[in-house]
């Protein structure tokens, strides 16, 4: 059972390395330690023209032993201001990580999904009410400046300090 996970993770690792060039917003996706394939990290880059531009957002990915059947647990390590991300814990509210997970997803595709979640927030199911309220009130400018501030505060520059 667990060997199946390892096989699959190894496979994903190799696929990730091969596809590295095709995903501009995913700077890094790899196991934290070479000998532990069940604990990964990823670094998302804020897309240009978004409020997250220039930010490097670190993700922590924990893979369960029955992985493709059960979804991985992903959270933001870097503090990020986003309606669907808990500001303190970094928990992500994304349907494909919860109810809509299917084994056909891969870590790579999930990371891409999270990356696109950054630019397409879903304020109706918020984990960060303040950010969501701004959006719900239609205060895009306020929201953007808030996001920009937090991005500048946490995600730009100090990325080396983990």
């Amino acid at each position, binding site marked *: *059972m*667990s*060997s199946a996970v390892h*096989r699959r993770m190894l*496979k994903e690792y190799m696929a990730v390395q091969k596809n590295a060039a095709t995903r501009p917003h995913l700077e890094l996706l790899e196991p934290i330690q070479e000998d532990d394939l069940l604990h990964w990290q990823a670094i998302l880059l804020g897309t240009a023209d978004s409020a997250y531009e220039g930010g490097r957002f670190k993700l922590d990915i924990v893979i369960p032993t*029955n992985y*493709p059947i059960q979804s991985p647990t992903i959270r933001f390590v870097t503090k990020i201001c986003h309606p669907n991300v808990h500001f303190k814990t970094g928990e992500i509210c994304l349907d494909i990580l919860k109810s809509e997970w*299917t*084994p056909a997803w891969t870590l790579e595709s999930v990371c891409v999904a999270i990356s696109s979640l950054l630019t397409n927030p879903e304020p109706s199911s918020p984990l960060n009410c303040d950010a969501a309220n701004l959006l719900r009130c239609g205060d895009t400018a306020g929201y953007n400046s808030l996001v920009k501030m937090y991005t500048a505060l946490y995600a730009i520059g100090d990325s080396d300090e983990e």
Partner: protein
Amino acid sequence: MSEGITDPSDWPIEFKSLREIDSHLRCPICKELLRAAVVLQCSHNFCSECIRRHLDKESSCPACRVATSTSQMRRNVALDEIANNFGDCRSLLLNTLMEAVQPKPVVRPVPPPQFVKEESMDIDYDSPQQKRRRTSTRITNRNVSSSQDHTDIAMGQVTLDDDKDDDFVLNHRDSSPLRHKGKNVHRSTGPVLRSRGGRAEQTLSQSSQSSQADERHEPTNLTKQEPSLPTASDHFHNSAPAPAEVQASLNSSTNITSSTITTSVASIASSPVIGPNLVACPICDKGIPEPYTNTHLDKFCLAGRTDPDYTVPYSLISKQPASVIALYTKQGTSTRDVVPDTNSSLTKPGTPGRSVGSNSSTPNSPARQSTMQWQPQMSSNGTAPRQPMFTPKPAAPEPKRIPKLTYSLLNDKQLRKKLQELGLQTNGDKTLMAKRHAEFATIFNANCDSTRPKPLSELMKAMQVWERAYEKDLEVRETQRRILDQQQQAQRQIHAAKEAKRQAKEDAAAAAAREAAMDSPGATPPSSQSSNGRSTFVPNQANSNAVNVAIASASAFAHAAKYADEYAELIAEVRNRLQADKEKALANTTTTITAEPAPPRSAPSQ
């Protein structure tokens, strides 16, 4: 398939459709080539095991989320066969393609024997996926010497080297007019399988391991093939292809090659006696007559050419009856068109698909596990097309699947009994037993869906592995829980300590305030003197603040002994506030009375 981590992107970019094929033959869940492919109502295909595991948790298709259930899935036999065979020939095909795409400079000028060796090493090394090992992978001199470009060589390899290619070979034969001889071969290959004396033994035993049904084919009928011998050789001579033809196309060459293999095999197998004068060439491994050795070496092997007369590997020819060897040593030309790696096809002649054709010669071994009665009739190596899948056969009943149980409705005893019936362990609590039953049901039922089912013993082995993994998993989870508990406890303690400290600080502040309030009238006569010039509370406030801060910092220091790091920040904060207070008091007093700042200065020094 235990080692190689494969991916559709392994294929060169030029062969996009191969990538497509590869990716479509993969299970979306495990990303491996399909094993025991099943199709759901929505026509998505998965490994039986993977989809069963998924459907245990959720009843929807992983690819399109359409609601579905285990009962609605069907075996996809054809796809499974395709995936199996694709997996068999994948690495070789890949190597060949890669070489064709980026030709190595070595390939062309190197003389055949070296080329041969390098090739075989290459392939062995690069095909960890293939369970069966080729004894020898050789290329006939015709192929090497006459091929002028790499593609040709590559084709030659495909045609000749790969034992997996025998799958094609056999298929072709099936459709060829040689059918009756095909049967003949099955019977005649018995001796080859049984005579385990020479260098081919390894391969033989290995191949018998991998093709499950080998033992069933051991008893063979030696007499039956005698009548057809002349026909076979006749055909052989007639159909012996010119070298050019061999390379003309992949299909035709396999076809022709197979027919020659068939016939030659049919003609040589009659009694297992080792030829006396035959030796193996130290360079090319071909069987050659002993007196001819030096000539062969000088003229061909050392000269970089291949001997057109003696092209059959020693390991193969030495297994043949003396009469055949005599024929071979006398007139090597008789076997000139026999492709050397025939032995790879010989090692697995007992493939069950063909055995069906000759029922009399293949009695079922009674030793076969009783519960795994499904026969790999259509199981191995592309022999399936020969026998239409659904010929009315009394044998091979569809194996009984293990029905799903509702574990909550069973008590321990019943569950234990169920496990016992299946021959599983019965230890552990109910949760473990239920999980064990579910796991076994999954892999057993998945195995039932396979066209290459594993024997029960392997499933049992898998169960043992699962047991160990489960135990380990439990342990890990236990440790994780303990660590989490400890962390929570520590946090609670820290929180409590903070709370207590805050409390103490408040108390101290209150007490100090009270004290200061009591002290101020008598203790500070100068302030009372000058009290008209300023607000009366200022000196008191400054005093009380100083005392307050002093007490707080004292208590903070006490805690700091315990949680130095934890409170370093707090202490700093307290100090800062102290400083601020001091300055404020100073400012206040300077604006009012200059003599005032004495008491606050003394306080922090304690």
